[in-house]
């Protein structure tokens, strides 16, 4: 029977919703136990959040000062030790998981399944390749631990509230390297919804034209309570910071509503929004490829249309 270890992602003492999404994937394996591992300097708040997620059997914690920041070189040896006795190790496919999971897999001497979209069986998974232009079915060797990253956009977060899983401290005897050190995290302070978990996202592209002009995107997003995203061209041009990039090499998201404004719809961008509920495109070029995937398309100048939208919303 399968036993799955899910690695918790957290920041600033709060659990990231990607963890509950990875738990959903673990539930789909239909194993006998799902344990969540919390590695942090102070674990209590994070662990009690994780204990509430439906389907979680136990929460295991490792509180060490070295775990204050998510350094892969420091976390991986601990996760590899903790993985003993588990058939699967699931990590969210966020920059956190993409950084640490392959390091764990290599320590365990196993291959990794990246970006799991669906679980077909305990050792059979679907994942995207070529920017989502092909979906492959991969079979992992049951003789080895499965290390996988879970594509957040493909899984809804497991519900919380009904569960109260026991929390246990885990003693891990692993030598931790000091060759890699955290210096700082520069975070764009924002009270806007988080791009990766927001139900609505408004994205601007090169068509927005400048950093100053991007205010109109932010203002509109605030009006409808949406997170803000961007195309690579808009990020490269310096209109917005890199953490807003949506696409193959940015964030893969699945909001209920995605509005692409002044974005042409390159395949690398579309990869990031394939699972969105409703896609709206606003572009002055009626031939733009974004209209091929949009549920609602509106041709016209964004600088004229956004104020009109705001008025129509009231």
């Amino acid at each position, binding site marked *: 029977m399968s036993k799955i270890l899910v690695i918790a992602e957290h920041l600033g003492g709060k659990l990231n919703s990607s963890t509950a999404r990875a738990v959903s994937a673990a539930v789909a394996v239909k194993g006998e136990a799902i344990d969540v591992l919390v590695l942090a300097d102070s674990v209590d708040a994070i662990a009690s959040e994780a204990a509430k997620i439906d389907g979680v059997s136990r929460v295991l914690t490792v509180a060490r000062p070295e775990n204050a920041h998510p350094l892969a070189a420091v976390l991986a040896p601990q996760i590899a030790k903790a993985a003993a006795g588990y058939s699967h190790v699931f990590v969210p496919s966020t920059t*956190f998981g993409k950084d640490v999971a392959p390091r764990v897999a290599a320590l365990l001497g196993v291959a990794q399944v990246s970006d799991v979209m669906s679980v077909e069986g305990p050792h059979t998974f679907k994942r995207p390749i070529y*920017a989502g*232009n092909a979906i492959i079915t991969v079979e992992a060797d049951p003789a080895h631990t499965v290390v996988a990253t879970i594509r957040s956009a493909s899984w809804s977060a497991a519900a919380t509230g009904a569960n109260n899983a026991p929390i246990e401290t885990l003693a891990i005897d692993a030598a931790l390297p000091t060759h890699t050190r955290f210096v700082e*995290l520069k975070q764009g302070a924002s009270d806007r919804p988080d791009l990766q978990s927001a139900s609505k996202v408004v994205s601007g592209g090169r068509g927005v034209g400048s950093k100053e002009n991007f205010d109109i995107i932010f203002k509109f997003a605030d009006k409808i309570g949406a997170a803000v995203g961007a195309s690579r061209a808009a990020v490269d041009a310096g209109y917005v910071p890199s953490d807003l990039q949506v696409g193959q090499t940015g964030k893969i998201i699945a909001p209920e509503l995605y509005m692409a404004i002044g974005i042409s719809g390159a395949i690398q961008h579309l990869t990031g929004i394939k699972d969105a509920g409703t896609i709206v495109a606003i572009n002055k070029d009626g031939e733009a490829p974004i*209209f091929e995937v949009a549920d609602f*398309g509106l041709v016209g100048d964004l600088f004229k249309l956004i104020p009109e939208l705001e008025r*129509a919303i009231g």
Partner: protein
Amino acid sequence: MKILIGYKRVVDYNVRIQVKPDGSGVVTDGVKLSANPFDDIALEEALRLREKGVAEEVIVVGIGPADLTAHLRNGLAMGANRAIHVVTADAVQPLTAARVFLKLIEKEQPGLVILGKQAIDDDANQTGQMLAALWDRPQATFASKVEIADGKATVTREVDAGLEVIEAELPAVITTDLRLNEPRFIKLPDIMKAKSKPIDTIEFGSLGVEANDHLKTTHYAAPAKRSKGVMVKDAAELVAALKQKGLL
């Protein structure tokens, strides 16, 4: 200091990939192949470090079939000093690629290994991290800025929460993100010069690397298509439609 670069050949990013009707793979016959864009960025960064005097030698590494030579010549034309071609006809999974790199590291003793954060064919995003684990050295993934001084790399990483800065003692593995730099274009005279630069060929089998095949791809499928929706005539119609769906 020597810098080792992963220089992988992939299907060009402009190619629209088609899945074979029988689900046995994707159509790669006759499609344009290019350097993985992230690997061009890796090479560019190494060349800049050499130009700054931080590094003396830049080596591009390709793992792949016999006809990889022309691709490696491009890396040499861009400015690498020499190339290493690990010859294998088989598809190489990331853990195997990492084990190959480790063998080359033992021989070359580089101060820095720069790989792409992901190859745009498999999008695996694993090789650099796996190599760092096997080598027991630091990893700085998704780099958008690299500074080398006093035996360490200070790397700015593009992470979901913003920009993270870490310090890594050398030797280390760095994987590149898109905004690290803009790779230079190859000029004609450089292509001529590249012809005389050495390419070492090593048979994969001679490295004593265990080819890891724990993962088997059993089927390829085209993704579920989104159907084209409707065009609305103005802002008012759009807002009405979204309100009707409960989205506004």
